[in-house]
């Protein structure tokens, strides 16, 4: 992955600048910025509330206010609860460019209104530019809301995957099979240690304990046993044994790779009793770390043989410092590339899941769930075309970025 730089100046530039020299990468980034903008400011672009309005001499900012209402900091004036937003006696009003929300029903335009067909709207301002679905939900507003979901999936799923992948890849690649040696007594104590740590962290405590506390207990019990193991006397117990970290990690990866990801995801998400898009993201991250771990492992195996690591060791730096400050930063290239491709994969996976109707609550609008509506109504071509196009564009730009990165990192 580390290509020889073309010139000295080339090597001085960061990978980001080098990547941007490719035209496809520049264009992909521009599209990505637009998508990020839509995701962040989606509420101001597609909303059935006005951005600003003046009613009976008072100024209101309903879209902004929605945030504080959602947080429970304030409530709506009675007038806004009684009358629909479209029918308030405004003196002046500024509606968002798309005056609909993703889940808002426009009952007068239900049953699949075509973008080009006749719509029952009072003026072009209220037109559904990309049509509506069976319930009269605006497709364009749905696409904008879906952008946020898609980018969040990419961010959170790959965030989880990168964390696990770096940890596992670093353990396997840097420490390998024979770098970590512990006393035989410690290795022996690890077995009951793991069992009891699991017991005291996940079985014994009352249901009210948080996951953070449980993890703390787990590590504490494990550490306790590890320290006890050190104290076991006798020649047999104090002899060092190797901890085959590389083997363990590679075996784990093999297990993950031999289960078809989509089937595993379907099963896990279906078993979870509460369906939320965040669980889906988390689960995608939990099954997609293997690629990152494998590439990082391979890169670290190369890096750790380089002279400067030897030098760092000769200076007496601790293994942890060498790994995190010297070896890891130099081996992150493949991780960045795999992450770019991984984001594309995660977005695709989530859209397949919501297309199949697994794991998304009935209320949330995603690109995949919009696309699945097209199967029931072949005549609504706009439902088949636009959400799919959004998925295609997003997946493609991340693939293009990955491609560009792999030639510049």
């Amino acid at each position: 992955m580390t290509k020889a730089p073309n010139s000295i100046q080339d090597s001085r530039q960061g990978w980001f600048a080098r990547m941007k020299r490719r035209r496809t990468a520049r264009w992909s980034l521009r599209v990505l910025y637009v998508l990020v903008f839509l995701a962040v400011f989606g509420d101001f672009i597609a909303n059935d509330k006005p951005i600003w309005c003046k009613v009976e001499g008072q100024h209101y900012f309903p879209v902004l206010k929605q945030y504080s209402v959602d947080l429970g900091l304030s409530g709506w004036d009675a007038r806004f609860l009684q009358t629909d937003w479209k029918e308030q006696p405004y003196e002046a009003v500024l509606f968002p460019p798309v005056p609909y929300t993703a889940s808002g029903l426009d009952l007068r335009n239900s049953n699949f209104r075509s973008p080009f067909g006749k719509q029952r709207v009072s003026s072009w301002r209220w037109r559904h530019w990309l049509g509506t679905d069976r319930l009269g939900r605006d497709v364009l507003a749905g696409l904008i809301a879906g952008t946020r979901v898609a980018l969040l999936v990419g961010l959170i799923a790959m965030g989880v995957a990168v964390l696990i992948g770096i940890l596992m890849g670093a353990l396997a690649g840097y420490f390998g099979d024979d770098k970590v040696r512990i006393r035989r007594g410690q290795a022996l104590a690890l077995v009951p240690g793991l069992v009891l740590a699991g017991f005291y962290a996940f079985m014994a405590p009352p249901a009210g304990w948080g996951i953070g506390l449980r993890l703390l207990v787990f590590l504490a019990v494990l550490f306790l046993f590890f320290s006890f193991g050190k104290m076991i006397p006798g020649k047999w117990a104090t002899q060092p044994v190797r901890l085959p970290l590389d083997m363990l990690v590679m075996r784990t990866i093999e297990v993950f790779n031999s289960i078809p990801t989509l089937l595993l995801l379907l099963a896990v998400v279906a078993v979870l009793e509460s369906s939320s898009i965040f669980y889906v993201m988390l689960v995608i991250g939990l099954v997609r770390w293997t690629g990152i771990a494998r590439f990082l492992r391979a890169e670290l195996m190369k890096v750790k043989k380089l002279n400067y690591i030897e030098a760092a060791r000769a200076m007496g730096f601790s293994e942890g410092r060498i790994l995190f400050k010297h070896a890891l930063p130099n081996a992150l290239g493949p991780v960045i590339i795999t992450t770019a491709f991984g984001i594309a994969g995660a977005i695709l996976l989530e859209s397949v899941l919501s297309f199949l109707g697994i794991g998304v609550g009935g209320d949330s609008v995603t690109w995949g769930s919009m696309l699945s509506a097209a199967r029931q109504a072949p005549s609504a071509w706009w439902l088949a075309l636009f959400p799919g196009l959004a998925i295609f564009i997003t997946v493609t730009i991340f693939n293009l970025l990955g491609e560009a990165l792999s030639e510049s990192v």
Partner: protein
Amino acid sequence: MARYLLKRLLLFVPTLFVVSLVAFFLSRSAPGDPVLQYLTNDPFGTLSSPADLYNAERVCRQTASLLGRDKPLFYFGLRPKSYPDTLYKVTIGFRRKALEQLIEQYGNWPLIQEYYDKVRAMDLALLSLPDSLSAAAASIKPTLRELYTITTEPAVKSRLDKLEGELAARPSLQARLSEDFQSLRNAHARMQAEADHDARWVPAFHWHGLDNQYHHWLSGFLSGDFGISLYERMPVARKVLPALRWTLVLNILALALAFGLSIPIGVLSATRKGKAFDRASSLVLFMLYSLPAFWVGTLLLVFFATPTYGMKLFAGPGLGAVQTGAGFWEQLGVALPHLILPVLCIAYPALAFISRQVRGSMVEALKQDFVRTARAKGLPERTVVWRHAFRNALFPIITMFASVFPASIAGSVAIEFIFNIPGMGWLTLQAILQQDWPVVFVVLMLGAVLTVIGILVADLLYALADPRVKLGKGL
């Protein structure tokens, strides 16, 4: 060769073992009570005599035994000391759940058991009342029944108080039931007073032996007995095997198409590197690679397989109608026109991926010295490309089978869903909607086995193609 294969096979055993553990424990944590699901109508719904209650309990026990749920979960168990090691013998889902909640709260198993038995005793006493009192009994029955499932302290207390009030208001009932009710109250009070909150911190290890759910599930799976579907009450194998056949038909056709097309495309663009054909095919293949198959599938279905737009060029979703009892080949004959679009949708992502790889490895191979030597010898270009370069470019293509095969199986889930092909993916989705977990997890296991077989086949082909992997005499 045989030794090499044996080594690879042995390496897959621990992998599949872990996969089976994952599938098994996921399946046991699935929501819903399989026994009640299998019975479809709740046997505890209408009870009018003690015999009815006994009968309902017996039905549950028998069903649980039929489904293999009346055994301990695993070879051994580690649980807090407060849990008895025989809790699995309670085969009625809601009772086991309530008992577990009570243990969580009070931790004193003998007293909890006593309290729960008293609830049941009171229920029996209610059911054995003569007909003349049944109208009065009907008013307190629902409150009592709630005690089977309600476990939090204030809720139980309010139910008990309510029962007491209702009994006091009806002297005829009071006379017959006061004794049972008093002992229920006492049992509850004792359970509360003598709660053991420390027992949860003491681990207790139980050895269950081979007669456990996992052992039976796995040995059943290995001998082709996949358990019983909770929906329609038929063996899972009878649902899964026909589905597996369609999935394999789809994927084998798709992969044959993908490999058959991508090798010439890849080789051609490698020999014409940088020329128009190479650049055009690279662009098209990259586009294809990024096009989500389930979107393309939906578009093809909407535009070309329904009459809506007047472009019905292909057969619609489903497999077409055949008479029941028709053989597989006859079914396949009818289904073939329906399979064109799904096969295309599974094939094209693989095609894009494989072509790029073939091109890459051919470009590498064409740079080698032996290719230059072959050309220098004056061999015709055809021979150089196909006999010399391509043979050496073949190895990475073969190993790719291991990653393409599972990907196409997974990809066919959405495609089967779109085109209504009753394959494994379609079956999985149906089973998830019906909460038919035995089917879901058998499919998950089979998917893993198929993936592992795919990797094995790739290994085998690699060993066959590369003389450097030592071949034994036998093969």
